């Protein structure tokens, strides 16, 4: 390992870390919003909207982000719409992540036994109250590990944005390996940067999962 190389390339990696964090953060927030929206619509059994959500979820989770980005970036300009690379990346990540979040939330909601809904209702709670105080806390607790996995997945999925020429972490590492052949240093920096981003996320998620667990019944 050559520390001089690491020192020389560190600024590039820091820049790439910031890009990765920026794209991932906006993408994940977007995905959560879309996910909650979709899960709610499915749950509420709204007639047309529900079918639309179904179509969206199936397209989004059954095609790769790479292809989605390709069409956003290279396809849309054919229709006269040019969106810059970073916005494309955020839109793409939101589009992909939305369905993963929706599915995770849905499985959480489904896992709450129906008897709880009925019990809450018979105790005189309104629909919204039941949702807020009984169903959601349990559903979130059950969905937490899947949500965490999704968040980490989406952060790592940002590595796909190099298809639209954004210099994310994997991109700069591959670049360094491809042109200077300092593979060791590049991979070391790559893992370190991911560690800096993902460790707090993983830690925070574990803590949150344990906090929420208190909400489940019989534990």
């Amino acid at each position, binding site marked *: 390992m050559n520390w001089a190389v690491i020192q020389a390339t560190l600024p590039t990696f820091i820049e790439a870390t910031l890009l990765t964090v920026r794209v991932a953060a906006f993408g994940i927030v977007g995905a959560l919003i879309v996910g909650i929206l979709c899960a709610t619509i499915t749950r509420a059994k709204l007639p047309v909207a529900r079918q639309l959500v179904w179509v969206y979820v199936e397209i989004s989770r059954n095609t790769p982000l790479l292809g989605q980005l*390709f069409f956003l970036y290279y396809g849309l300009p054919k229709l006269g719409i040019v969106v810059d690379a970073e916005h494309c990346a955020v839109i793409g990540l939101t589009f992909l992540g939305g369905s993963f979040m929706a599915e995770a939330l849905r499985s959480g909601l489904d896992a709450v036994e129906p008897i709880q809904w009925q019990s809450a209702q018979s105790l005189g709670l309104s629909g919204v109250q039941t949702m807020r105080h009984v169903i959601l806390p349990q559903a979130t607790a059950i969905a937490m590990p899947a949500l965490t*996995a999704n968040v*980490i997945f989406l952060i*790592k999925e940002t590595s796909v944005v190099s298809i639209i020429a954004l210099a994310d972490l994997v991109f700069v590492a591959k670049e360094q390996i491809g042109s200077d052949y300092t593979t060791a240093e590049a991979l070391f920096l790559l893992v370190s940067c991911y*560690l800096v981003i993902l460790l707090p996320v993983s830690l925070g998620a574990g803590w949150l999962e344990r906090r929420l667990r208190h909400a489940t019944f019989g534990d």
Partner: protein
Amino acid sequence: MRHSGIELLFQGQNFLRLLHGLWVSASIALLAMSLSIVLGTGLGIVMTSKNRVVKFVTRAYLETMRIMPQIVLLFLVFFDLTRYFNVNLDGWSAAVVVFTLWGTAEMGDLVRAAITSIPKHQYSSARALGMTPWQVQRAVILPQAIRRLLPTTINLTNRMIMTTPLVALIGVVEVLKTGQQIIDPNRFAYPDGSLWIYGTVLLLYFAVCFPISRVARLLERRWS
């Protein structure tokens, strides 16, 4: 003379090549996923252990696999195993190993979460009825856990299929790389060929992933 690009699909063996590429992607992902489900279920059950050492080791494995970008794992397994241990895996096998290592970790965490999400009173009740801990796992906990696991496992399978394009780096030509191979030599004659080929690649991914999601959803409905 410029053409639209859809003809590219029907030139020579192009469409068959894409299908072959799809088979490469799918075979890596599905084999790795099958292995991950078996190994991950074991790991997940172990992870619910109260033993601190066991918890430490399994947690460390999970975090490592999650944080490590797959491209680094590919480099480690494909190149460094050869360099340091003289283990010369071909690209396809190396890819299966890498995806299994990663998939086992993710599956393990999902299984652990599913098991611990079953209310504890069920465990206590079953024990009180005189069942052994193993019987409780098999007859009470696992059936419920599996139902909760299905959607997330399907998510993971699809994620794995979609991560396969990375393996081009170690010389494995999967469906996306095949697409790029078709687009490139035709860039002068078919400037818009890339949209058609990428569109086809997208459809092919969909053709593999969609039935998997469907089957999962049907099973889920039947079991509920």
